């Protein structure tokens, strides 16, 4: 992947009315753009500028919410342009302390299958399932190969948003091996809670039941959001995923799904996690080798 290192265009600074600044680092997705968004927003957070209300790193961009009564948006843009230079270029020895997380998924489950069949009219391919469609347009021989590809390499959380706790995840493989699928032609009005979806080059786990436009591939037995904070993993925070978390999706069968659901309902479930130092440059130099080492930690 080193040979295909992405050179990012100049960042684009835009005002979202008087309360927001949107900064697009690239129109297309790459890990480089995401790492840059993480670095700049991390440096901004450390500055503790008065009037900055929210700092939201996104996939290939970031967004700031501010109180214009305390800081003028144009002044903040000047500050961000400065950070683009000082914090945007990562040194080779830059590492991110993060964690790798085992995320069980029941693929082709009865609940998302029922939902996607109900919304066939909203889909590019009304005759099949979302899995069959995604396997075909990505050149896989069938659904099992698609699932192997998803579970074979981990994903990094590149953005939280849409609704509370929803992680956008990007697979840590070179671009030619990325799975890419369109969003539904018309978004669904219903999606089961904890559905595992895929749209563009991103996978998500839906935190709550509601609307959604991503292709539906399966369901997670464990939640990513717990407003009541009943599970131990949510004691400190209502959302489990954090930006830069590395998620390893693991295909499970119905028996394991039911067992984990039981643990969740009993309040005993905990995600299997391990602390890791993530080195973007080491990863970009040898993605597969790096991923192998990463997954051995779990």
């Amino acid at each position, binding site marked *: 992947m080193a040979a295909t290192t992405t050179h990012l265009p100049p960042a684009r600074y*835009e*005002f*979202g*009315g*008087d*309360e*927001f600044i*949107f900064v*697009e680092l*690239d*129109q*297309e*997705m*790459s890990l480089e753009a995401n790492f840059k968004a993480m670095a700049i927003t991390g440096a901004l957070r450390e500055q503790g500028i008065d009037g900055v*209300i*929210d700092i*939201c*790193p*996104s*996939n*290939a*961009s*970031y*967004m700031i*919410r501010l109180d*214009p*009564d305390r800081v*003028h*948006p*144009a002044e903040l843009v000047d500050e961000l342009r400065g950070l683009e230079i000082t914090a945007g270029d990562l040194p080779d020895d830059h590492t991110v302390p993060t964690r790798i997380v085992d995320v069980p998924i029941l693929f082709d489950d009865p609940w998302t299958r029922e939902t996607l069949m109900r919304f066939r009219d909203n889909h590019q391919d009304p005759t099949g399932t979302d899995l069959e469609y995604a396997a075909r347009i990505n050149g896989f021989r069938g659904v099992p190969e698609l699932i192997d590809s998803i579970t074979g390499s981990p994903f990094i959380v590149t*953005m*939280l*948003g*849409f*609704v*509370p*706790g929803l992680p*956008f995840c*990007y697979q840590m493989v070179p*671009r030619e091996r*990325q799975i*890419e*699928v*369109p*969003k539904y*032609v*018309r*978004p669904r009005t219903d999606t089961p809670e904890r559905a595992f979806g895929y*749209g*563009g*080059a*991103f996978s998500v786990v839906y935190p*709550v039941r*509601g609307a959604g*436009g991503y292709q539906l591939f399966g369901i997670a037995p464990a939640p990513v*959001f717990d*407003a009541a904070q009943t599970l131990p993993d949510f004691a400190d*925070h*209502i*959302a489990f995923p954090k930006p830069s978390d590395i998620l390893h999706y693991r295909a499970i069968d119905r028996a394991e799904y039911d067992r984990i659901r039981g643990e969740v309902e009993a309040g005993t479930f905990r995600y299997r996690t391990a602390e890791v130092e993530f080195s973007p440059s080491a990863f970009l130099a040898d993605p597969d080798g790096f991923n192998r080492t990463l997954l051995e930690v779990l």
Partner: protein
Amino acid sequence: MSEIIVRSGGLYTTVQDAGRDGQYAIGMPPSGALDQYSYRVANLLVGNPDGAAALEATYIGPELEFTDDRLIAVTGAEAPARVNGEQVAPWETLSVRAGDVLSFEMITSGARPYVAVSGGIAVPEYLGSRSTYTLTGIGGFQGRALRTDDRLPLGSPPVSGPAPGSSVPAGLRLALGGVAELRLVIGLCSYRLTEAALESFVDTEWKVTKDADRVGYRLRGGTIDFIDRDPPFGAGSDPANVVDLGYPIGSVQVPGGNEPIVLLGDAVTGGGYATVGTVISVDRDRIAQARTGDRVSFTPVDVDAAISARRDRGIRLEKVRAAVS
């Protein structure tokens, strides 16, 4: 403890305050009163501190029974209000006693009446705010809209407040009716539209559809063309698709090219549609009072005009404070 007995919740009445700040990065929108001006004036009229929680109704107001002496005020949409069946004035400090019942007639203009009560609605704070966010069922009264027989806790009334009968001068009330002119800062991903499309977006009088709630308003009335391009990697293949990004509150997206959606306080915080501009914070008050079938139009302004409009609103609020205290 003192409380309000909800005899009827109306169509969709929620507890709201100035909003829940600082949670956007995990995907939680600020919520809060959609029409912040009317909400703040209501608090001023009953002597509440800034940020006290009040009630926001939609279309059909609630019926509320009071259990002790309080000051109350009704602002926002025009919905003739009655206490024990007697018509009472909006935008005015009213005094109620135990057993008094506040009720509403059909709305005549606007969409959302606000009801403030001295002492404020004292539901527990959740992440620093009492605002209701029904999508995930958090904040407010049990995370949901009010229902018959709910009992809303009230805080201790302030030691002094405006005298009953204190009234907001007509020029300081929110102007309702007609086409809602929304000032908009163009940008974000507006490069996705042709120049003609941007012009037609601004020239069109848009109609509010029935899909208009606290999450956002879907509009209809014209079509908007995107510039042809090969979709960038990761975006998805629709012309309106971009690599998923953050959505500002007030931002306008045009999925499919024919249905602009303006995001409001309970908005989704990000997604994969191109956003082409952002309604300035002051004019979110105005769209919050537009209802299905009403017309809205967009007027481009720059960020300095947005900030100066915000200052003007601050000055108006200070004038209200001076007029009622």
